[in-house]
């Protein structure tokens, strides 16, 4: 198994290289360092000399891929591509275009993001499974059909509405929760509670339907009939047998997103002014800070690939039948 995991880990290197190449093409070829300099320095009264000094400061004053002025390996290494890519692989994101240390920002901002993402994830997981189970128990009844349509209605509402309405009614009108903001430490739960609740409700429709389809696939298998024939109650059949077996598809579907929780939620964080990585990214997008956006793209890709790796590992863990070549 270890050789398999090692091989999968090695396989992710070319993917990361590809991600890096794509982001590089996007950020440096289409949008040349000169353009970036103009954006950062402001549009008015920018001379070519200003642009030149800015590029020199930020290390953008080299050729993109091939440096013909150099000799030996420096032809390839003394270029923007090499100089800007290698630190990324060492997880050193350098400085943003406005001069801030990106690594320091990330290590500070990941905690609020996690404080929001982890409770959201766990509570949503439990609620979705419970509701899906409940719907499977009611299979074939009118109530089940109604609740199925209800879930479709829930998922037809834009996530923005849940947030706007939730923020307006619950926080603004009834003063139950703070409307927005964040505080470190134990006090943070008061600020996180409302976004977590809204996140859970917003994801309920599609979540319940996803788990329901997994349970329905299990419920037609022979072992369920056997369990029923033994005389087990429907609750026992569902919670002891179906749920256990459904854990395989559930786990493998869920594990892949766990590392990405780290990235935070773009919309939620910016709506509730939570100083996490999500709002960091949004701010960077709005101020066109390409260094930060590029760092976040790369970070997100690494986390996704870790998620894929964890999925493979979890397969072996939950289902010993799975063998690797």
């Amino acid at each position, binding site marked *: 198994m270890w050789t398999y995991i090692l091989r999968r880990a090695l396989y992710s290197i070319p*993917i*990361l290289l590809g991600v890096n190449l*794509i982001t590089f093409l996007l950020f440096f070829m289409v949008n040349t360092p000169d353009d970036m300099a103009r954006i950062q320095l402001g549009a008015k009264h920018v001379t070519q000399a200003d642009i030149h000094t800015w590029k020199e400061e930020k290390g953008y004053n080299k050729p993109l891929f091939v440096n013909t002025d150099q000799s030996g390996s420096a032809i390839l290494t003394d270029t923007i591509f090499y100089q800007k890519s290698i630190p990324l692989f060492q997880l050193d994101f350098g400085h943003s275009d406005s001069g801030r240390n990106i690594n320091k920002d990330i290590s500070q901002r990941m905690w609020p993001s996690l404080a929001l993402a982890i409770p959201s994830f766990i509570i949503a997981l439990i609620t979705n499974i419970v509701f899906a189970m409940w719907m499977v128990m009611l299979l074939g009844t009118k109530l089940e059909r109604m609740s199925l349509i209800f879930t479709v209605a829930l998922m037809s509402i*834009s996530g923005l509405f849940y947030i706007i309405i939730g923020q307006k009614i619950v926080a603004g009108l009834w003063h139950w929760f703070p409307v927005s903001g964040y505080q470190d430490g134990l006090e943070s739960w008061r600020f996180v509670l409302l976004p977590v609740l809204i996140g859970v409700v917003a994801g309920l429709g599609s979540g319940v339907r996803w788990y329901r389809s997994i349970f329905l696939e299990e419920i037609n298998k022979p072992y369920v009939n056997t369990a029923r024939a033994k005389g087990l109650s429907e609750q026992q059949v569902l919670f002891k047998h179906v749920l256990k077996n459904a854990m395989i598809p559930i786990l493998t579907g869920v594990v892949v997103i766990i590392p990405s929780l780290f990235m935070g939620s773009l919309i939620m964080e910016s709506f509730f002014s939570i100083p996490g990585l999500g709002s960091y990214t949004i701010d960077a997008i709005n101020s066109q800070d390409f260094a930060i956006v590029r760092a*976040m793209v790369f970070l*997100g890709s690494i986390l996704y690939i870790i998620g894929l790796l964890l999925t493979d590992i979890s397969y072996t863990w939950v289902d010993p039948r799975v063998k690797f070549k």
Partner: protein
Amino acid sequence: MTFVWLWTDFLLWVLFAISMVAVVKIRGNELLLQKWQKIFAQPLALSAFIVFAFYILIGLSDSIHFRLDNNTTTYSVLDRALLPALEAEEKTYSTPLNFEQFSKEYLDNGLRGRVHLNLVSADITNASDNTKNLLGLSTNALFYALAIFIAFILFLAKFTTINTKDNRPALATVFVLLFFCTWVVLLMPNYHILGTDKAGIDVFYKAVKSIRTGMVFGLLTTLLALPPAIILGLMAGYFKGKTDDVIQYIYTTINAIPGILLIAALVLILQVYMDEHASDYASALERSDLKLLLLCVILALTSWTGLCRLIRAETLKLSELEFVQAAKVFGVSNIKILFNHLMPNVMHLVLISIVLDFSGLVLIEAVLSYVGVGVDATTMSWGNMINAARLELSTDPVVWWPLASSFIFMFVLVLSANLFADRVRQVFDPKGDEDA
């Protein structure tokens, strides 16, 4: 009068033509016809489809643009139909169906009061007159709708074999839509049906115009994503080996980049590019239209991977089957095997993904507008409406109608698309829970 063809107009009509060809093909194919009949046999799906088709109709009527000879403004057919609302120049907010402005200000006579709206008849000066007038118009609309509806039923009974008794939910939907149409036709020349926004623009007009934007988003993106998804998916599954490795590598790499960040990065670059070349576009309309189209291209670039993966897996299974092996032995060329033998057998996946993705794409438009990487600010879209409405909610008294309007218009479209998509998936997916 000269016709103006925008890029998205052209592509929407191409899409319409393709779907008409598909309908003709389906009618000629016994098996497919049965499946579609099964879809429409469910009352809910049929009703959802009728609503969806109504939206499509509005969207298409907004996709024929022309310029009148004595005028520089470009109109669409829908603009002309909604002309009274479009041309009534109000100053600021007014609530739905009201006869005066929302907020008080100093009038010409020096007193504080609410300004009478331009569109509403000057005879209406108080709330009870207004209600009376509204009730009268609504009753008229109801009578017209009933008359047309009865004619419609008689037409169905006389000239078609459709059984009016078995299709009550669908007929009820038709009636509701009819009533909506007659009501709008009667009220629109005299009222701002959903009020006006901050700049005095009719909210109903904005919400209806947004239908086209949502449709372009949902339909064109899928249309653009289909060719790479189908071709690469089929090739990966059929040729296997190195081709498969390369294609898998491409889509895993694209998948690895967080979707919304990739979209945001692409749009940022697009914005920089379009700002630099601002003088290349003939009009603001063409510029915003091109941006809409390029947004669809960007979304398509990031969204073809899911379908591609599904088609690859299906093709892997199919290419082991006898009919493909037989075709190979007979010396049929690879291209023919791919497109004549394999492609028809993965079309159910394509169909399911089109209908399932549509609603998600309509919803994502709003999110993109919020993040600041959505459609052009001059394009009317639900995303832009919601974005503007966020600030209005914090005013006192609350300006709720722009948000509520965009919510309702969006919700009805996405809900009908979702309900219809659900049924399509049930019938076409071999694994679908057909009992429901």
